[in-house]
Every structure is written in structure tokens, then in C-alpha cells.
């Protein structure tokens, strides 16, 4: 295939050539970045929480009366007994927060009491001796809390926990070169905290971008939040009994003490709902970007078909001449396919620059990560195939132009 005559012909269709190339370039820039955003968001949605999501639900319990610390403790203990007695319930715990709730509760972590720049900003869970077991966390080293270690924390009180269970991610961040078990750290506490256990995975309470450097860095302290506001009950059910237990739990709690508030909208959530809510905006972005990608590729393909069809129509006579001079169907097909390939390659060369340019802008202004080369390569391949696919039908039509066209006036 000779490229020279194709280039010569393109020079006579500068506007059309430039438009197709430009469209391919812009499409590449958008598609690469959109695919990258989709992939990032999907990865975020799939982040493991570390808990037994299929069998867990959460009750956000606010008190209807102003309880003193002691009153709150008694109520909580009573509630935990009530919940545990429900059929299908395997375990119950209470906490100040739970993984992927969407809102963080975190403490700066330092290795010495007067260190200024923190080593981590870890999620801070207050749990009792049932916390690890109820959530289904995997304790990979050390031990769980003992009931007598759990302290109660009233309104704006500070209890000074001396032990903690931390996630593996946090252990690795704090003690990269050694076993974290038995070591000490500070979590905005006046006294050191000793690591007594390590759990495999425990997601933070939030799923925000700001906490990405601390992803998976979580700690549990043996504390029961007993302030006048309220508490989260996390309930683990036996397999298959989640729905029934979720229906029974609020009824049982209200029957025991009606001076409480469980919000009808989001006071009772299965963990599947928790996950759904946490990643709503990520899912939305992935959907929007997918729609835009698909429509964009369709429109670009349609545009190529439209302009190429026009060219074929315009050149019927020249095609006829070539056919009369001995060019085969194949030669004509190849001519248009190659023409599209050349325009596409030109467009893609500009597109690569635009793709990285757009990514740079998004990176600087909107904290998008740097676009990996694979996305640009993938996008290039997609668009080359798209171009070749789009040009196929008009090229086929061109190849069927009979040699007799050469004799007809244009």
C-alpha cells in the first residue's frame, strides 16, 4: 500500500481530515481519563471493610432523655442483653462508630508524647470485649480485650486507655520493621498505649479522599461511649437471619425502654445498606463516566462514518477510474482503511498529549491521581479499532463502485 497518494489526497480535504483527527484526539483525552476515573471509583467501592458484612446490621441509638454516665451505662448493658436474646442474633457490641459509616472519628498517632507531625491519623473505635468477635474481625496476633479492661466514657470525659488492638495496616505504618505487638504509641493520649492485638483488616469510618494516606489504619480501644447523646449497636446475626433480626431488634429495644430514638430513615441499617450509602457518589461517578464514554465513542464512530461516506460519494468517479485502471475491490478497501488509520494516528498523537494535559489539570485542581500509561495505550487501541470499524462500511461501499463510474460525469 502506498501512503504517498493517500497523503496527497488528504491535503485536498484538509478541513475534514483535521476535524476527524481533532475529534479522535479529544475523544482519546476524555475516554482515557473517564476510564481511569471509573476504575479508581470502582476500586474505592470495593475496598474491604474487614467485617462480616453479610450478617451485620447497625442501630444508631440516641437517648430520649439526658442520662448521666452511670444511667447510660446501665441502659447500654440492658440493651445489649435484650439484643443478644433475640432469635437469630449471634453477637452484639457497642461503639462510637463503625467502618465505612462515611464519617470519621480519628485521632492523631505519635510515637512520642511531644512529637508534632503525626505518624498516622488513625480511625479511633471504642469497643468492648465483644467488638472484634461481633464484627467478625480476624485477630492475627495477640489477644482480644478482657471485659474488665473496658472503661466507660461519659460526656466530654477522657479515659486514658492503656491498651489497644490495631489493624495490620496501622501496625505496618507505625512499626515498619518489627512486630508491633507489645510496642507503644500515643493517640492524643497523655500516656502510652500498648498494642495487645492486631486484626487483619479494619476499614476507617470515613471513605474520603483526605484520609487516603491512612487507608485501613484503625485502632480499637476498650472504651464504652456512655455520653448523654447515644451509641451505635452493631449486631451480628446467624447466617440467613439478618432480615428477621433487623425487624425484631427495634421493637425489642422500644419495648424495653421507649425513651430512645432510632431514626426511621437511617437509624437501622444492614451493612449492605451501609456500603451502598458510603460509596454513593463513587457509584454515581462511575455510572456517569461510563455513559459519557459509551455515547462519546458512538458519536465519534458515527462522525467518522458520516465524513467518510461523504468522501466516498465525492470520489466515486476517481474510484471508478482506479477500478478501470485495474485496482481490485481490496485495493479500494485498503485505501480508505489506510486513510483512516493515518488520520487516526495523527489524531491519537495529539490525543495522548491532550489526555495527559487534562489529567494534569484534574490532578492539580481536583486531586485525581496521575494517569497510568496503560490507560492511554488502551484508549489508543480502542480508538484505532473504533476508527477502523467505523470506516469499514463506507470503505466496503467504495469498493463496490463499478469501473463504469469513470465514464459518468461527477
Amino acid at each position: 500500500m502506498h501512503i504517498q497518494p493517500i497523503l496527497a489526497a488528504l491535503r485536498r480535504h484538509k478541513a475534514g481530515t483535521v476535524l476527524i483527527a481533532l475529534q479522535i484526539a479529544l475523544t482519546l483525552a476524555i475516554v482515557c481519563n473517564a476510564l481511569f476515573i471509573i476504575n479508581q471509583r470502582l476500586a474505592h467501592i470495593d475496598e474491604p471493610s474487614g467485617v462480616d458484612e453479610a450478617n451485620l446490621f447497625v442501630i444508631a441509638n440516641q437517648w430520649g432523655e439526658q442520662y448521666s454516665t452511670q444511667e447510660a451505662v446501665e441502659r447500654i448493658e440492658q440493651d445489649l442483653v435484650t439484643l443478644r436474646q433475640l432469635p437469630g442474633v449471634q453477637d452484639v457490641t457497642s461503639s462510637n462508630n463503625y467502618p465505612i459509616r462515611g464519617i470519621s472519628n480519628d485521632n492523631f498517632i505519635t510515637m512520642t508524647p511531644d512529637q508534632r507531625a503525626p505518624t498516622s491519623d488513625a480511625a479511633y473505635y471504642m469497643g468492648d470485649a465483644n467488638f472484634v468477635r461481633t464484627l467478625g474481625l480476624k485477630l492475627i496476633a495477640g489477644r482480644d480485650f478482657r471485659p474488665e479492661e473496658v472503661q466507660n466514657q461519659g460526656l466530654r470525659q477522657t479515659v486514658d486507655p492503656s491498651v489497644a488492638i490495631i489493624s495490620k495496616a496501622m501496625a505496618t505504618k507505625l512499626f515498619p520493621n518489627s512486630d508491633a505487638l507489645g510496642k507503644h504509641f500515643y493517640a492524643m493520649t497523655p500516656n502510652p498505649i500498648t498494642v495487645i492485638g492486631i486484626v487483619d483488616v479494619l476499614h476507617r469510618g470515613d471513605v474520603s479522599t483526605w484520609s487516603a494516606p491512612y487507608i485501613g489504619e484503625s485502632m480499637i480501644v476498650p472504651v464504652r461511649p456512655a455520653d448523654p447523646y447515644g451509641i451505635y449497636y452493631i449486631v451480628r446475626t446467624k447466617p440467613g437471619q439478618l432480615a428477621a433480626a433487623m425487624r425484631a431488634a427495634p421493637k425489642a429495644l422500644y419495648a424495653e425502654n421507649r425513651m430512645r430514638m432510632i431514626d426511621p430513615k437511617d437509624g437501622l441499617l444492614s451493612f449492605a445498606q451501609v456500603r451502598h450509602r458510603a460509596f454513593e457518589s463513587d457509584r454515581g461517578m462511575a455510572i456517569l463516566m461510563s455513559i459519557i464514554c459509551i455515547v462519546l465513542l458512538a458519536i465519534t464512530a458515527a462522525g467518522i462514518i458520516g465524513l467518510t461516506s461523504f468522501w466516498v460519494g465525492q470520489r466515486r468517479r476517481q474510484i471508478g477510474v482506479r477500478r478501470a485502471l485495474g485496482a481490485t475491490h481490496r485495493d479500494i478497501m485498503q485505501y480508505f482503511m489506510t486513510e483512516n488509520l493515518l488520520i487516526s494516528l495523527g489524531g491519537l498523537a495529539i490525543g495522548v498529549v491532550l489526555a495527559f494535559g487534562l489529567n494534569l489539570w484534574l490532578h492539580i485542581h481536583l486531586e485525581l491521581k496521575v494517569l497510568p500509561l496503560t490507560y492511554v495505550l488502551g484508549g489508543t487501541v480502542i480508538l484505532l479499532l473504533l476508527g477502523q470499524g467505523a470506516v469499514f462500511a463506507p470503505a466496503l461501499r467504495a469498493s463496490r463502485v463499478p469501473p463504469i463510474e469513470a465514464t459518468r460525469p461527477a
Partner: protein
Amino acid sequence: MFTYYIQLGLRSLKRNPALTALMVMAIGFGVSASMITYSVFRAVSGNPIPEKSSQLFVPEIDSWGPGLNEKGEPPGALNYVDAMALMRAHQSKRMTLIYQIGLSTLPRDADSVPVASNGYAVTGDFFTMFDVPFLYGSGWSTADDDARAADVVLSREFNQRMFGGANSVGQKITLSGHDYRIVGVTKRWNPSPRFYDAWGGSGFGDPPDFYLLLNRALDLHTDNVGRNSCRGAITYNGWDQYLQSNCIWLMPWVELDTTSEVARYRNFLESYSADQQRAGRFGWAPNVRLPDVMTWLDVQHIVPPESRISLIVAMSFFIICLVNTIGLLLAKFMRRAGEIGVRRALGATRHEIYAQYLVEAAAVGLTGGLLGLLLTAIGMSGVGLLFEPEIAQLAHMDLSLIGLTLVVAIFATVAAAFYPAWRAAQVQPAWQLKSN
């Protein structure tokens, strides 16, 4: 002549239905993607209080110091000690302090269970500073603040739930076991973004249920349920020690009418910080800021990144659709080179050809705009799938959006037609006639 062009345009659109449909779809999809994302962006990035946004300021004081503050910037709220000091200083025309609280309410029938209600503890100036509209009664005075009165203002929605919408001013309401006197009921008021709580909250959401007198809330140890941020080792034990801690949680706002007042207030913040440094409370030089509403919203990144990214991507998508349209219009117009040649030979001027094809493009734009309108309406109902509920509910189709959709579609298409129409007008009559 214009109507003749329109007729010609419509006839020509019918002649290549596939090409025309393609252009209309490109314009329709492009404009609707832009409009859907724009409607969300418009809602989250707008000025929530346009009449006063340049008179309302957030006094920020660096109470944490280098290494603990936010990359050199003072934290976004005040601790109790500094907040109260600013209140007592009376250096601005008006000032309020705000924090978020959650209380229980017991509906009137004895069998019912308590319901959660959310609101803000504020000072009396809150209502005058932010031009809160009242349905019944009014806010409370500074004297009531000083008297630490048990006053509360209900929102219209909450008054509807609790009192069936009746004028409840003067009545008593029990919140978390304490009685309060209702002094006012607001009209529907939910500035979006909720600038006054941009540091503590997401900036969007349902309107609050009530506004409680701050001093009373503090007296009753009503805890802050919004954002709270502390530095260093936390050692406070109990409410009173918490108030003295370095934890920030009170959101201050001041109203300053003139640039000289702003300058004076900034000087006051500087000298206050310098006093604290001299007194040994701050171990660093004064570091203060005084942003107005829009600057504050910008600093707090109130516009979700998703909204910006989707707007940018959707607009780029529209641009590609337009490039596509330029190409297709070129193909469409040039296909009729022969016809143009005949018209030119019969005396039509270049200018007339140019006008005719621009009108034809405008017809494509209008059709594309109508399709875009339809797609936007469909997209609006699905916007809940794309954005978080509290943000999605802000996006809505109104007259201005409908108008904008059509105008943008027509203008963009006509702009896209400039070059193809110019090419059409350049057709040499002699050439075309000869080859025919």
C-alpha cells in the same frame, strides 16, 4: 427571505435523514450532559446569600500554632475561650457563634416515642445577620442572650410536625427534657450551600429543626454533635475542662459593612492574638484570617470534586459533539455544491448563501436543543443515581435551565456552522456548472 431559508433548511434536513439525525443526536446528548451536570454544579457552587455575602466574615484565629495548625493556615473554627473573648469584645456590628446540636422531642400524645431533632445553638444576631425570614414572631435580642433565656426558634418544617403549622409563638416546647419558650418560627430557609456551617457539615441537607439560644445550650452542657477537632494530648475531664481545651468547635461569624470596618476588625484580631502571645497563651506570632462568604466556601472546598469533574467532562463531551457537528455540516453542505452553484449563477450573493446555511444550522440546533431538553428531563429524574441524595435533590429543571439548554444548543450549532457555511459560500458557480 428568512422564512424561505427556513423552508429550504427543513427540506434539506429531510433529504439526509441519517446525517441530520446524527447531528441532532450529537447536539442533544452533548447539551443535555452539560445541562444535567451544570444544574448540579449551579446548585452547589452558587452564592447562598447574595445580598450580604460580602458583608459577612469568618474571624479565624490560629489557636494551635505552627506544626499543629492546618499547613500554616488557622483552623476553621474557634475554641470556647477565643470564641467567648471575641463575643465579649463587641468589635463588630453583629456577631454570632454557632454549633450543631441534636435533641429529643416528645410529640404531644403520651404514647408516642421521642423523635430526634437537629438544630443549631446560635446567638440572637444570627437571625438579623443572615436575614432569616420569619413566619411568626422573630429571633431573640442580645439582651436575651445575656439573660441566658431559654428561647428557641423553630423552622417551618419542625413547627409543622410539632404544632401542625399553627402559630406556636409563646408556647413551650420540651427538648431533651428541658423546657424552652418559642419566640419565632422561620419561613422555609435553607441556604444552599449552608455557608454558616460549611466547616462542620457537608454544606447540604435538610433544613435544621430549631435554633436554640447558645448561652442556654452551654449552661445545660448540650454537647456539640457537629465537627470537633483537637490537638496534642487530650486530658480534659468533663464539660468545664472541655470548654477550656484547645478543641475547636464553635463557628464564628461577624457582620462588617464597610472596608474600613473590615480593616479595623482584622487589626482587632491581630491585636487579640498579640495579647494572647504576650499573655503566654499563644507561643507564636498572630496568624489570623477574615474571609467573606464566597472566599470561605472556596477555602472549605464546599463544591464536591465529583460535581466539578463531571461538569468538566460533560462540557468536553459537548465540545467533541460540536467538532463532530462541524464535520457533518461540512459534509452535508458540500454535498450540495452543485445546487449552490446554480443558486449563485442565478444571482444569489455569497452573503445570502452564507445566511441560508446558518439558518439551516440553527434549525438543527433547535431540534438538537429540543432533544437535549427531553434528555435533560430524563437525566434529571436519574440524577439521584449519579450524585449523593442531599446534592441530587438540589438539581432541578426550571425555566432558566430550559432557556439555557435551547440557547446553548442553537448558539453552539450556529457557531459550529460558521466554517462549513463559509465553505459553502465560497463555491465557484462556474466550476460546478461546468462539471455538471
